[in-house]
């Protein structure tokens, strides 16, 4: 037992205090990035960052937005987290944890629309996910989210679970309470995340779904026959922010990664990962329409503040609807 414990130890010879990280010179050392970005996006940006900053060693912890939040929360409770950058698709997390973030404004921030940036610089949107609908190739399909409550689609609809997925929560927060309860009362199955929705559509268990466009685009590239439907009452745009933590041990390295992710090359990686860039001039992901050609529910400070305030109530209302 003792032997195992000693084996697990790293032994350092020399003065007990490690040399403090300097903020001079080129960015170097480990930078921990906790993110819900897809592995394919990480695989695309990691070599580019290493080529730009040979001394820098980005360490990625990839997991869903909820798992990232749980891990950081536990590490913070234990005394500190290695996480320097947090990049998930739950914009409300950043509002709730603003006091543990430090401001940073990357050079490209002026290109990002004002509503997608924290005015104190504690987070900046790095990518945008779009919640849309999907259907098999049959003729009868909904035109709007409102249609999901129509008897024609009774027991045919599936969506991600707002209690398990932040993007699904943002979606129902943008719906009216009446629409939410009508959709649910129509026999809609809400479970898992967008991947689970896609699976149920592909298996043919349900034929209409609400899910993230990025999952759909990736599946269609692999030959899936499920088609996107852009709701006429507005697809839901969900900003995926990036933020620098206040107790980041390597801020200069972290800022270099931060700036890269908002640079044209970093933004292109998001587009290649089937998401929209935060900078509106850049092209949409392959196979997707430009955001200004479809109806999108606008993201505003007003909406974000209201939902951040009512979050618990919205979720409790949902839980009541589901267990009725």
């Amino acid at each position, binding site marked *: *037992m*003792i032997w195992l*414990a000693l084996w*697990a*130890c*790293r*032994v*350092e*010879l020399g*003065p*007990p205090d490690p040399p403090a990280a300097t903020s001079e010179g080129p960015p170097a050392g480990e930078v921990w990035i906790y993110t819900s970005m*897809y*592995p*394919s996006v990480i695989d695309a940006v990691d070599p580019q960052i290493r080529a730009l900053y040979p001394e820098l060693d980005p*360490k990625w*912890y*990839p*997991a869903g937005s*909820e*798992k990232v939040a*749980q*891990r*950081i*929360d*536990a*590490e913070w*409770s*234990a*005394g*500190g987290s*290695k996480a320097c950058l947090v990049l998930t698709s739950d914009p409300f997390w950043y509002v*709730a944890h603003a006091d543990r973030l430090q401001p940073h404004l990357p050079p490209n921030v002026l290109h990002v629309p004002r509503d997608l940036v924290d005015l104190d610089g504690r987070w900046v949107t790095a990518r945008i996910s779009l919640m849309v609908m999907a259907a098999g190739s049959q003729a009868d399909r909904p035109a709007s989210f409102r249609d999901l409550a129509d008897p024609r689609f009774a*027991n045919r609809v599936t969506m991600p679970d707002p*209690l*398990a*997925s932040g993007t699904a929560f943002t979606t129902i927060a943008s719906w009216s309470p009446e629409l939410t309860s009508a959709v*649910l009362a129509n*026999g*809609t*199955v*809400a*479970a*898992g995340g967008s*991947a689970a929705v896609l*699976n*149920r559509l*592909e*298996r*043919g*268990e349900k034929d209409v779904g609400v899910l993230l466009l990025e999952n759909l685009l*990736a599946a269609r590239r*692999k*030959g*899936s026959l*499920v088609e996107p439907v852009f709701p006429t009452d507005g697809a839901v745009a969900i900003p995926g922010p990036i933020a620098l933590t206040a107790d980041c041990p390597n801020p200069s390295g972290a800022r270099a990664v931060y700036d890269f992710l908002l640079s044209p090359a970093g933004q292109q990686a998001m587009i290649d990962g089937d998401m929209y860039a935060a900078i509106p001039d850049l092209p949409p992901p392959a196979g997707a329409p430009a955001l200004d050609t479809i109806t999108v529910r606008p993201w505003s400070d007003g909406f974000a503040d209201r939902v951040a305030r009512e*979050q*618990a109530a919205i979720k409790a209302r949902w839980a009541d609807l*589901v*267990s*009725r």
Partner: protein
Amino acid sequence: MRALILGGAVAAVVLLVIWPLTLLLGSLLADPTALAAIAHPHNVRAAAHTVLLCAGVLAVAMGLGVPLGFLVGRTDLPGRGFWRSVCTAPYIVPPYIAAIAWITLLNPTNGALNRPLAALGLPPLDIYSLTGMIFVIGLETTPFVMLATADALGRMDASLEEQARIAGASPLQVLRQVTIPLAVPGLLTAASFVLASAAASFGVPYLLATGTPSPDVVLTTRIYQALDLDPTTGRPIAVALSMLLLTIGVGLPWLATRLRGRRRFTVVTGKATRVSPFRLGRATGPALAFVAAFAAVAVGLPLTTIVVTSLLDQVGGGLVTENLTLAHYRAVLIERGDTLGALRRSLWLAAASATVATALGALLGWTRLRTHARGRTLAAGFARLPYAVPGTVLALGLLLAWSQEVRVIVFERVTFALALGDTLWLLGLAYVVKFLAFPLGQTEAGLEAVDPALEEAARMSGATFPTTWARVTAPILRPNLIAAWFLVFLPAFSEVTMSILLAGPDTRVVGTLLFDLQTYGDPPSAAVLAVVVTGIALGGNALVRVATRGRAGL
């Protein structure tokens, strides 16, 4: 020597189990209002579902496992070694992969088995229900009961049965009045595992409870939701609900074993003769049919479904020649750079944690039953808890306890820095902690059947503590310890829930890969990995059995 080894085992329980659980409890004490969550109507309903789930699973697993164990362990059933291995397979397939297979087979809309039912005009079977969960988890836990029954019956002292025969009892009477009652400790251990396992199961309820508009939510899914909703306010709620879960999964079984009282169940003494197998005679046919039917339903159906899924080009494309491809195998095994690394890492990690857990569990079990050390029951009791704590909560506890660097400085020059976060060590510890209950339970079941006189004789002849273990205790416990090793190895090999939270960028394992493929890839790719994992587990087990002529392996 003895005190040092046993002290080490207890210290390990304190550091690995009690410390993380205490920190979790601390987050509840910091926000005691979370206790109110227990009384919330949704959670009361979830708790009721958990109780029903436990009861149903217990009925299925005992109802199938006891006869199976008797047939493969105590009768002259043809090919019983083979059947024993095959019937262990439900435990080998990662549970939520099995659940996905059952969804493919039995979802009410277009399940492969429901289509013929619909053609006959019968209503579809619905896997998305409490009954569906009981069915899937029941099949998954049947192997526990089977193995425990086979073990308990196979090691019986033949003289006890012979005496009953001489006294004029018929073979069936012997079975009912002597053999089965003597197997009670083993069966109780198995039953308590089944209960804890059903209460703590998450993957299957998560997939099966959520497929309907008004799901039969259980406690583990509520705990998961509480944490996903908001980790900060959710953690105390999750801990409060976990305590409720522990009451159901561990507290009730513990009470049940108390009720059994203090009877002795010693069946292995120094003078034992080997038992003779029960002759099936004309019952051989029906017995074979029963075992084969179980294998077909619990092993054949889901495994076939997984293999077929792994070969589909498009999931919705149906089972036609144009839609069959090996492309997913190439993509997962060759084109993905990290698959082989993750497989190697998980194999190594599962083997190491199984070994450590078995050693630790054996020492703890022995300490509880064979010494009078103070706190022995408490240490063993705590070691049992983590198995019934949901993986997510346990992983958070380990992060609370061990994610920070611990530095010990000697002579002001040499620093021992224990940084477990994001290392394989932390993952290994998690597996040891979670599955410690298996070797502990197996050891206790084994020791209860063995007369302490055997070990006392060795000690009196001058053998040291390690020698007694090596020469007497370990050989007697061998079947239990081997079973325990596999019972830890198999779930650790493909563990998902804890691995997602604990694995770092350089320590991706099979579980995280499986999750990635399921979330970011597609069902056929995830099925490919499931086929490979199941193949390795089944193949490895078969290899071990052949190499040791059936003395090791399941």
